[in-house]
């Protein structure tokens, strides 16, 4: 037994593109979230974590975001990807390794997460001038 592929695509399109799931759900009509925020983590935030759980704190780090309207590909095959690369500010003098990322609700603080996953390969930040980037090959896939 599994989640039907059409259902997977409908759920992902609702979450990431604010697209109505015909006959089941529409985007929030009062204060809908307009962006998805991207956090970088130095360890797995886990299923109970928040945006600030093990969140990277390299010098100059700041969460990035993309729009729920145009920031994502339409779901296909039960997966979505960002429409453009997600690029973070270049580091100041820091020493850390990015191993996980997450997608969540707010630009700062212990905000709720939608999903989290691995960063491949891990990104080592060992000096100034390193600008981490998650490419458009990044994928959120349901099963």
């Amino acid at each position, binding site marked *: 037994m599994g989640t039907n592929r059409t259902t997977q695509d409908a759920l992902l399109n609702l979450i990431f593109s604010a697209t109505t799931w015909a006959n089941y759900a529409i985007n929030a009509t009062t204060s809908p979230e307009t962006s998805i925020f991207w956090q970088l983590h130095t360890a797995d935030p886990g299923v109970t974590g928040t945006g600030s759980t093990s969140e990277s704190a390299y010098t100059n780090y700041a969460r990035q975001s993309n729009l729920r309207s145009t920031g994502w590909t339409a779901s296909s095959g039960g997966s979505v990807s960002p429409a453009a690369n997600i690029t973070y500010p270049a580091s100041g003098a820091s020493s850390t390794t990015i191993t996980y990322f997450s997608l969540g609700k707010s630009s700062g603080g212990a905000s709720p997460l939608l999903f989290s996953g691995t960063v491949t390969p891990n990104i080592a930040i060992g000096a100034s001038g390193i*600008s981490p980037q998650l490419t*458009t090959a990044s994928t959120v*896939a349901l099963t």
Partner: protein
Amino acid sequence: MTEETIVSAVGTVSGAGGVDSNITPKEIEEAMAAAVIKAMNEGITDPDEIRRRQLEARDEVVKSHGTS
């Protein structure tokens, strides 16, 4: 002035484990990440191809559990 170097990587999320409770998200995530590494080792940089390989890896894990 410090020179800026962009270091690219691929983020992978597997939303498994909901209905298909016999498959762990970690199992699928690891297979998808391995597919990314393999593609990179082969010199593949096309995002579409990397995505395709990740989903292929996901589907293979699902099939191996007989839940496709």
